[in-house]
């Protein structure tokens, strides 16, 4: 069941690089990360790639396969034709370090700008009481494995370096929403989302939700509800339009 697959892998560093062609064995049941590992073991020992769990749990192996942002470990070879040439490139939105490895420090900077959980002062550890239905909304967002594929995809920053300063991206706007919807968080997150994290830049195209490997409804369940909460305070034409388009009232 093995065949020789054709691959083009981007190789280079911050000073430049190019696609390199490889022909490599592909076996039944394999994923793209297996092929990258085979390249390391047999043809390109210094090919740089990040990975840890090989099971879609850690969010390390993000890259672009035939131009689509994906996890290398969760992309099965069986979705491609044997004759197809498969192109693997690093995430485009972040600066290149080497080969498939990018500098994702933007995300850690943004994470640090979201004010942390503000627990109620009068509850001791062990006294927290929350209903399952009330924690479920934030739990959905906490499924995030921080693969940063949504951050990579969002057009607000994908080709717009200049927006990176003001816009935290879907992952961290969702983090704000997660805290806002946490049943016991005591801080007010609504103005923060708009003023400090650039929620206004988002025009709910849902591209982020489409690439999320955890299938989190980032736009529908985090971004739009946050926009609605902002709109309750200020008028935002995009929400108004969004409500019309998606018939949410």
């Amino acid at each position, binding site marked *: 069941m093995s065949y020789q697959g054709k691959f083009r892998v981007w190789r280079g560093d911050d000073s430049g690089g190019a696609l390199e062609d490889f022909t490599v064995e592909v076996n039944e049941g394999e994923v793209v990360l297996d092929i990258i590992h085979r390249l390391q073991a047999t043809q390109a020992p210094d090919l740089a790639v990040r990975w840890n769990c090989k099971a879609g749990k850690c969010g390390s192996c993000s890259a672009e396969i035939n131009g689509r942002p994906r996890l290398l470990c969760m992309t099965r070879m069986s979705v491609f034709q044997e004759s197809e040439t498969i192109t693997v490139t690093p995430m485009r939105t972040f600066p290149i370090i080497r080969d498939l*490895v990018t500098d994702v420090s933007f995300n850690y900077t943004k994470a640090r700008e979201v004010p942390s959980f503000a627990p109620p002062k009068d509850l001791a550890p062990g006294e927290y009481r*929350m209903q399952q239905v009330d924690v479920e909304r934030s739990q959905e967002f906490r499924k995030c494995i921080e693969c940063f594929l949504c951050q990579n995809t969002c057009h607000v920053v994908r080709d717009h370096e200049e927006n990176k300063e003001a816009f935290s991206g879907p992952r961290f706007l969702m983090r704000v929403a997660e805290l806002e919807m946490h049943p016991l968080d005591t801080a007010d997150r609504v103005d923060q989302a708009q003023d400090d994290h650039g929620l206004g830049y988002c025009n709910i195209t849902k591209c982020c939700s489409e690439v999320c490997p955890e299938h989190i409804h980032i736009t529908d369940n985090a971004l739009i509800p946050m926009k609605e909460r902002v709109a309750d305070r200020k008028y935002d034409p995009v929400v108004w339009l969004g409500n019309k388009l998606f018939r949410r009232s």
Partner: protein
Amino acid sequence: MPELERHSFDVLVIGAGGAGLRAAIEAREHGLRTAVLCKSLFGKAHTVMAEGGIAAAMGNANESDNWQVHFRDTMRGGKFLNNWRMAELHAQEAPQRVWELETYGALFDRTKDGRISQRNFGGHEYPRLAHVGDRTGLELIRTLQQKIVSLQQDDFKEFGDYEERLRVFQEFTVTELAKDGDRISGAFGYWRESGRFVLFEAPAVILATGGIGKSFKVTSNSWEYTGDGHALAMRAGASLINMEFIQFHPTGMVWPPSVKGILVTESVRGDGGVLRNSDGKRFMFDYIPEVFKDKYADNEAEADRWYADQANNRRPPELLPRDEVARAINSEVKAGRGSPHGGVFLDVSTRLPAEEIRRRLPSMHHQFKELADVDITAQPMEVGPTCHYVMGGVEVDPDTGSSSVPGLFAAGEVSGGMHGSNRLGGNSLSDLLVFGRRAGAGAAEYVRALGDRPVVPEDTVTEARATALKPFQEEGGENPYTLHMELQQSMNDLVGIIRRAGEMEEALQRLEKLKERARSLTVEGHQQFNPGWHLALDLRNMLLVSECVAKAALLRTESRGGHTRDDHPVMDAEWRRKLLVCTTSDEGVRVEEKPQIPIRSDLLDLFERTELEKYLTAEELS
């Protein structure tokens, strides 16, 4: 030679999994300047993969649960070889550590009355595992990561610098510890990204580097698990204990080949999943060992009633401790009653409604669908044993996590003793928090009490640099990937789940040859993010640790927990009183016997005498 990057901290934590992060939080809360170092990105450590849950006797699901019951289960699981003081502290403190996570922002699944929900797991008498679906490790690591961020935000408010007292160095590998006389004085390593070397000066180092599973071929562990902390500790003069005990998790994926070894969480069985052989038989009923006969059901009817009524029925044998289940699966496959790809069937599809499976086991559902084309709500899974966890590790003082080397501490999977010969599911995550916190506090106390600060001798740096660069100097030597594959194959075949003296002797011979060949490893390319080079450096640690495992396993002539000898199949009470201690010097690895400290009498009183008779010698009982 480029200028060496230098940093100075009070406490250096090596590892950013649950143990390392909890230790760092504690050291920082004691007011010390703390650094966390990790090989992967921040938030990607192994802990993120934990699925089933975290064990803590909070008594939310069954009021009869308390620390004494948890202590008993832990000791039984470890076949009484556990360091009883660690097992005691762990059982007592786990609930506080879990509740504390809620104050950091964690959102566990809830009971009807709004408390933290707890699920069943192998070896735990009551439903005890706090969980979030089957992604508990993700919740744990993200929560701790966010707590670190929150402490950094506090520093930003106070000092205008996020990193004033707590800094994370990610994608950084430590290759050597430094000492000033007998005392720890720092650590040396390289940035994975640039390959540049860095020296950290610090009077206290906490090892929280996790396990060693990458030395085995079929494993649930990632590339990080090369036993670095184990090896660093040994080279610094500390000792390891219990290295012969390796946990093979009974249920890893067996197909397709590329995912072989990836874990299938025990929650599948905790939530009702059953094991069947190719005849469709629930074979675990045939494998209930004598010591567990009164706790496990011997027929399907009773086992099935247990899920609804635990007070009046015994538990299903699928929930026996992991070592028992792994051996049973191994026997079934050997007897020719395995599944098409050499495992057995794990079925939850006929046990729970599809909707319920998707809700309780979302990531397993996803994993099988995406990686194996199997819909677990409609079909059984194929599973088999996979190398999962090392019980052995750095010998530490239970209360402070201190090793025998002043200034060197260890916590989490890299430490030894807590789990004895076999770890219960869910007891690792709680171990990380309980002993991570204690090591953080222990290191803080040590630094406080210290007079002069130890310094790093310059030749430590010169030597460490030379060792690290050696693979670039060689030409035409061995390929690290090839060597690694041979090591994995040897350990898997010869020091695996079932062991024999002859095979282990052969393993040791092969290890000698591999060590020899490893001296001439050659890597291509530059120092910048070069996985071949990284592997070459990790191999040194894997070889050292593998030698400890093989040597200790050969010496222990009995079967207990994660150490099964075909040639010595019974458990021997005399051996319970002995620990095997590994150290290294210029002459190589040494393994010596050391007497176990007798269990404190009030803790012994928690057990029935009839039960103790199964484990203790007549002399100890009198």
